[in-house]
């Protein structure tokens, strides 16, 4: 099983441990990753210029098809935008021709065929829960996890086909396989607020705050995410910009990345998982492991 790894722009500088932990987990589960220099998925520019966004995505897809490899990305926004671009290219012949004319100048071409998969869907559908269960050596005990889905993986469902949009279960299953208890919380499908960061910071922090409070009320010890932008929001941005008068949330309910959770249960090297790199201290996660 081999995929082209699509890290996305933000991971290298902001969240390197998301990449190292994802690679460690996938490697341990026998998933091979190839690396080619790719460009931005086109998600950020989508607000300003849809053609530029779709061309950015299509270039990555064309590079992947040159490698004859499907794409695996740990970022839900990259995943969402690459899928969205495929749907637009599929439905719009004029756009497809325009994009292919641009690609042609580099000897590239987009055509149907390359699949885009998110880390979580590869784990559930390609690796399989039973294969993961076999590798879990130190299951968690008495650990309540609030899985946060991330909008762009779930919706628009006709484009992304990630899971059942109103009632997804994929993330809960993946949490349960580590021995942790997935808590049920009402805001689990809502937005983390990051898309509005640096556009309307007050609103962005408010939305995050509402989610944190809800997960806390539901009895979660940790929030668990599987998206670069969501983790930047719940971890980096929360630590450096606590909402006014709410600095207690700087330490409460840390957010961890799913490969950190799974990697710990699998007994992988802690250096690769990078728990100490989380801005909101989450090192006590190791205490829930049964050894």
């Amino acid at each position, binding site marked *: 099983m081999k995929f082209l790894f699509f890290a996305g722009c933000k991971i290298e500088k902001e969240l390197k441990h998301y990449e190292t932990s994802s690679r460690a987990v996938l490697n341990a589960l026998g998933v091979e990753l190839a690396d080619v220099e790719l460009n931005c998925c086109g998600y950020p*520019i989508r607000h300003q210029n849809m053609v530029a966004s779709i061309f950015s995505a299509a270039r990555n897809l064309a590079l992947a098809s040159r490698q004859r490899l499907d794409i695996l990305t740990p970022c839900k926004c990259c995943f969402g935008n690459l899928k969205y671009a495929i749907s637009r290219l599929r439905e719009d012949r004029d756009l497809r021709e325009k994009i292919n004319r641009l690609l042609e100048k580099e000897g590239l071409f987009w055509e149907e065929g390359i699949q885009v998969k998110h880390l979580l869907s590869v784990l559930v559908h390609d690796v399989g829960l039973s294969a993961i269960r076999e590798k879990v050596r130190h299951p968690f005990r008495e650990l309540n996890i609030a899985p946060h889905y991330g909008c762009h993986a779930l919706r628009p469902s006709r484009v992304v086909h990630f899971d059942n949009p109103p009632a997804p279960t994929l993330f809960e299953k993946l949490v349960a396989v580590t021995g942790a208890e997935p808590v049920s919380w009402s805001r689990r499908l809502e*937005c983390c607020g990051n898309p509005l960061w640096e556009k309307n910071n007050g609103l962005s922090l408010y939305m995050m705050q509402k989610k944190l409070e809800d997960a806390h009320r539901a009895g979660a010890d940790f929030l668990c995410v599987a998206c670069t932008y969501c983790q930047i929001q719940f971890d980096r941005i929360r630590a450096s910009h606590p909402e006014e008068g709410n600095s207690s949330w700087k330490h409460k309910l840390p957010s961890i990345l799913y490969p950190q959770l799974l990697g710990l249960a699998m007994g992988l090297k802690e250096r690769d998982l990078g728990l100490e790199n989380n801005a909101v201290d989450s090192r006590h996660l190791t205490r829930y492991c049964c050894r």
Partner: protein
Amino acid sequence: MIFNTALYLSLFICVLGLIYRIAGWFRLSIGPDVAGESAVDRLWHACKTVLRALAGLRMLILFKILFIDVLLQADLFKAHKVRWLFHILLFYSFVVLVFMHAMDDMVTRALFSDYESTLNPYMFLRNLFGAIAFLGILFFILRRIRKKPFPKATSRTDIAAIVLLSVILLSGFLLEAVQIFSAPIFDEMVADYMRSDDPEETAPLKSYWAEEYGVVFPEAVDTESPELLYAGQKLHEDYCAVCHVRPISAFVSYPLSISMRSFANALNAIRADIWLWYVHFIACFIGLACLPFSKFFHFISVPLNLMIRTKSPQVGSDDWNRAVKRSIGMDACTHCGICSLHCSVMPIYRVTANPNVLPSEKLLSIQRIASGRHVDRNDYPAVSAGSLACTDCGRCTAFCPSGIVLHDLWQASKQELACRGFSGPDQWIRERSAGQWASLSEQCGLPDIPEPDDYLLRNMAPEAFSNCVQCTVCANVCPVVSVPDSLSSPEVTPQQVMNLLRLNMRDLAMGSRMVWDCVTCYMCQEHCPQGIRVADILYELRNMGANRLQKVRFMESGKPEKDGGSDGTSGGNAI
């Protein structure tokens, strides 16, 4: 006389220029975070840092940087192996030529007591290093002609540097070639060293030099007679051989000289050797005088930048020298374009044709803005759009062979642009209500937003939203509609945006807070019972806004754009 005057003049210009450039590091700044600092403050902090570095252990680190990063150019090696090879060849061959050839009286003679420029190995080595340097230049010319990832990849300063280096090298080779066959030089040397002007006495030497050294005399010289040649050889051994070897070791100039033999008499008559000598040294002195103002300045700025750069991903806000570091960083750019080749958002440039998307080109614009020189207000929207396209992935910094901390420059310049009123549509939209924006674009004479003719705006076609039954499901599931008024007060809800579109009030829809505070969670679209692509429509309204707000804002500021900007590629419309 001319030589010395030109030398001192060019040295004087060079020193003055260097002072001017170095003063610029303390005087100019980019980024509001350093705007308040005075030049004296900066100089003070820089001096302290330098002294501390010289005194402490940092000295060892600086030596390491000097050796690995500057002399071996490790960053360029990592970024591009072939370019590294040719850059090293060009650089070191020039360094050798400058010290051992141009400054031979001072350097070479001091090192080797038997030095004569017309003896081996010096003659051979001069040709060798000249040839290597020429190979390097040829590679850079070919690369710039062949591989053009973006149109402005070669700037005027690049061309000037390449032309100047080529003139220096070519005139050097030509000069030597002409000197080889020069009869006037032969006559001067004979007069100086043999102290004879008797034609009978010098005839054997002429014969020998015409035969063995390729000198071309205006009169016919007998090179057939073995006696004459033998006598010439004797004379040669007495007077010339101490300083002269056969020119065959000048493996570039000698063949060049042979190929020019048919014009030799004419060239000797006009003393081409003197003219070429002027061309050669004047070109060198122009290079010296222009050093602070040309691409050659990177000999100074790049090593310095490599020594002062901060390798941590974020330049600390407590770094007192960050303003100076930014200025030196900007000066260290050689416009090699490696950053743009690896830029994550390069495809955006391919669509919008805004060169300011590319780091190498954006840096040129930012240099202009920081220096305050000829900044056209028309440039700002394009620079701003280019800056906003950056995703801050840090690849440009990682690949920069000059070690420029580019991502810090981008952050600073983004803030600088915001201070000058070019923050971006997400900020501008908050300055006015939707109604105000709509009436403003009417006042500015902008036509109603045209019918979406682009497939891009497929979702804006009437059939895309005409099915809306105003059931308010979208408003009920929208996480933004329900937030407190202090954070966002969408005057209209998603279904009201659809209604505005149905009424063809696109400007009003576009300017509404609902459109710009949308978190793109797609809840509305997912839940719409009529299957309307609500979130997609909001996306496209923002696309329109990004274009239109820039125009309105620009026209409102009183100065019209250079061109209509309606072709999708010009400045105001760049993104």
